[in-house]
């Protein structure tokens, strides 16, 4: 049924998510090309034997940015597109887009130097949350409760030489009820949603949060689809919090993990990703 058609999986490491995608493709009789992001080279001329579509599962934002651009240059669509990868992979660009589309999101101020960051934190107010603009899994995030905390964290940031650390993304601390929501969107459909609970203020599954299926209310569905569409659409995990004012979107993830979500909800997330990619590759 899929003669001549192949699906590329661009990856850094094979986790249960990538294994599930490979298995879903195999179950559908679709040939797969595994493309290791650490071993591949990209020339300016289109190479022979490319797949018809590539599912980007690289965990590196930098590699994802360039690789999706090269695949686009070769005329091979990617899930997600280079534009979505760039936008959703950067919290600052995502916040801008969410605000432009009128999607409720926590109050956010960005400082372009550690020196300006204290002003940004004071503008947001205490407690505030500092996040790296790029990267995730709750890594290098800090909750700042007072000016002493802020000064210490910023001193550490100033000592780091990477320009990435000089950009300080400050967000209001949302007093969520010990949980947040993750909604998985594929195209124009919500595939599944789950709560992530943690005693830690960070509710990332990678930080050991426990998960359970969440009902998809019309409001949750509409807001999640709007957020996914705002960054360009595709395969996206929209993270939301239940703020006192209502639901707010705080992140849209372009290469989402879904092992915990699939286990909590029973949703065939990998299958939905493969079906979406195959449709894109056949267009």
């Amino acid at each position, binding site marked *: 049924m899929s003669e001549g058609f192949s699906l590329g999986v661009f*990856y*850094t*490491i*094979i*986790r249960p998510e*990538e*294994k599930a995608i*490979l298995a879903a493709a195999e179950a559908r009789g679709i040939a797969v090309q*595994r493309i*290791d992001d*650490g071993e591949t080279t990209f020339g300016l001329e289109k190479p022979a034997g490319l797949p018809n579509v590539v599912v980007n599962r690289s*965990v*590196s*934002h*930098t590699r994802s940015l360039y690789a999706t651009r090269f695949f686009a240059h070769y005329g091979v669509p990617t899930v997600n597109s280079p534009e979505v990868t760039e936008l959703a*992979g950067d919290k600052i660009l995502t916040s801008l887009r969410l605000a432009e589309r009128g999607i409720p999101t926590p109050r956010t101020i960005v400082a372009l130097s550690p020196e300006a960051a204290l002003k940004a934190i004071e503008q947001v107010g205490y407690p505030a949350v500092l996040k*790296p603009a*790029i*990267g*995730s*899994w709750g*890594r290098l995030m800090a909750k700042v409760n007072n000016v002493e905390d802020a000064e210490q964290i910023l001193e550490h940031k100033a000592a780091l030489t*990477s320009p*990435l650390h000089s950009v300080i993304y400050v967000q209001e601390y949302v007093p969520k009820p010990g949980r947040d929501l993750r909604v998985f969107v594929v195209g124009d459909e919500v595939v599944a949603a789950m709560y992530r609970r943690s005693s830690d203020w960070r509710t990332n599954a990678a930080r050991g949060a426990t998960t359970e299926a969440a009902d998809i209310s019309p409001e949750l569905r509409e807001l999640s689809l709007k957020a996914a569409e705002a960054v360009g659409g595709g395969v996206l*995990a929209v993270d939301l919090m239940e703020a006192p004012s209502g639901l707010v979107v705080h992140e849209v*993830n*372009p*290469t*989402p*993990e879904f092992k915990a979500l699939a286990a909590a909800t029973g949703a065939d997330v990998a299958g939905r990703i493969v079906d979406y990619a195959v449709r894109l590759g056949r267009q």
Partner: protein
Amino acid sequence: MTQCPECEAAVENHDKIPGEVFPCTDCGTELEVLKTDPFAVQPAPKEAEDWGE
């Protein structure tokens, strides 16, 4: 079967594929499958600054 490069415990290939990461059942070190025939593993790559979802 091969050995964990950290603790030398036996590591078995149960349907693993190249690139797959998994923890050593003895010491917990994250390992990455280099190849399956013969089965060989190495410590998994360390999380980089731009890694995430």
